[in-house]
């Protein structure tokens, strides 16, 4: 499959001059010595992606045991759709910390993946989540009520980090409302606090979810997603999913959908704060908001990249990749590929079609995409009704963080 690609898609045109220019601009050779955690990637996010897209089908990293990185949309799609060669059974990150449990269904292949996905999908389809819309809009207004008269807020802490958590825990998980604050704050602190402090916040969530799962398993099913997870699925060999597998599914659902949505929500809001003419387009015609949401997902991708592990040797873009090597599918790059997107560097909230890969591709496609879109559309619609004109507070600067995920720690808005 992967060997039959159009030669132009896999051709590298990286010259010695390109490498020197990369070192001048970014302080390193992004083509042969890429590092997703280098602050230069966080600071020059779009520029580095665009240079990789233009010149280098398969970049190489020498960090840890090393990994490869593909950005062009066709390549990313080929890898995402071809799980037999590009497996998820070793997880989505290279140099995985020892002892870290695999999260299903994200970090497994068919048939285990298929068993879980088929059971989970009905809970996240458009028809199933449509009734959540009214609750989400009401929650958006509840949050806005808290700060609208103050004339300012930190959008990330006071809205963006809260709404997706409420939407998920209340509607999908059926978690008691009294427990929401500790869960949402633990997800936020586990995402934004200095890295060494993060595990203790995640541990709180793990413990809560473990107890919650046991508790719901004892209760009569309400037909919710968590009841299905508690009951578990049967694998192809006739065995039932273990408690550890079931807990990992619960954790995967929680982490997949909360902090990720926060980022696109916040950076989209920053764009509207800084571009009053574009904001006015949405105020004049709110029916454009779903298009704006797609464009924000395209240019502000929370999931920058996810990895796959090769099950056989593959030659691609002049690189000899070996069985066991990791290749990162850069969804963020794929959404900026000029081969399939006109003027990809331009943010255009009126694009009729924004062909992006913010929600991934292939069988592991984001299961919460429909819910995320619902939250994003509701957020911009309700916000613009209540606070039509707003700016980023002068003297403040949002702080970003980039790795596997991209996030934004703060966004101080005034109106």
């Amino acid at each position, binding site marked *: 499959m992967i060997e039959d690609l159009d030669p132009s898609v896999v051709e590298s045109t990286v010259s010695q001059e390109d490498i020197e220019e990369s070192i001048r601009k970014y302080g390193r050779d992004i083509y042969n010595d890429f590092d997703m955690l280098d602050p230069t990637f966080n600071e020059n996010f779009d520029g580095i992606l665009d240079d990789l897209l233009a010149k280098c089908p398969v970049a190489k990293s020498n960090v840890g045991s090393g990994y490869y990185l593909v950005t062009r949309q066709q390549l990313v799609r080929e890898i995402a759709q071809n799980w037999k060669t590009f497996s998820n059974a070793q997880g989505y990150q290279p140099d995985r910390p020892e002892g870290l449990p695999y999260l299903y269904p994200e970090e497994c292949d068919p048939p285990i993946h298929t068993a879980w996905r088929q059971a989970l999908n009905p809970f996240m*389809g*458009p028809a199933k989540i449509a009734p959540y819309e009214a609750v989400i809009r009401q929650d958006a207004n509840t949050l806005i009520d808290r700060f609208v008269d103050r004339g300012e807020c930190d959008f990330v802490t006071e809205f963006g980090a809260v709404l997706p958590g409420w939407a998920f825990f209340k509607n999908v998980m059926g978690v008691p409302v009294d427990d929401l604050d500790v869960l949402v704050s633990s997800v936020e602190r586990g995402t934004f606090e200095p890295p060494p402090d993060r595990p203790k916040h995640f541990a709180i969530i793990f413990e809560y979810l473990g107890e919650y799962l046991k508790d719901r398993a004892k209760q009569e099913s309400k037909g919710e997603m968590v009841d299905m997870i508690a009951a578990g699925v049967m694998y192809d060999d006739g065995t039932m999913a273990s408690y550890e597998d079931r807990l990992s599914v619960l954790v995967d659902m929680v982490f997949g959908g909360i902090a990720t949505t926060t980022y696109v929500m916040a950076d989209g809001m920053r764009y509207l704060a800084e571009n009053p003419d574009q904001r006015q387009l949405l105020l004049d015609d709110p029916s454009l908001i779903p298009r704006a949401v797609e464009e924000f997902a395209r240019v502000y991708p929370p999931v920058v990249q996810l990895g796959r592990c090769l099950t056989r040797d593959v030659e691609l873009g002049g690189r000899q990749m070996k069985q066991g090597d990791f290749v990162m599918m850069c969804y963020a790059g794929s959404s900026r590929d000029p081969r399939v997107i006109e003027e990809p560097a331009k943010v255009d909230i009126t694009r009729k079609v924004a062909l*992006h890969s913010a*929600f991934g*591709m292939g069988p592991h496609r984001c299961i919460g995409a429909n819910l995320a879109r619902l939250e994003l559309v509701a957020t911009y619609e309700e916000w613009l009704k209540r606070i039509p004109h707003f700016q980023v507070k002068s003297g403040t600067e949002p702080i970003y963080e980039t790795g596997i995920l991209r996030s934004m720690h703060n966004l101080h808005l005034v109106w």
Partner: protein
Amino acid sequence: MKVIVDPDVCTGHGRCWTYAPEIYTLDDNGYNAVTGVPIDVPPDKEEAARLGARTCPERAITIVVSAPGPL
């Protein structure tokens, strides 16, 4: 015009349905309900059906343009 959705490639993004819900119907899982067979597209839905195909992140939709008259 007709469109065909590849059942092995559709993973339920639902983008096609957003553009042309009359052409691309979804099952309870949010995946295309009609796959592997041509779906007729009335002339007034052609643009929406094309946009739906273009926006598919998986490239799961093929557009089949029928010949205007006898071959």
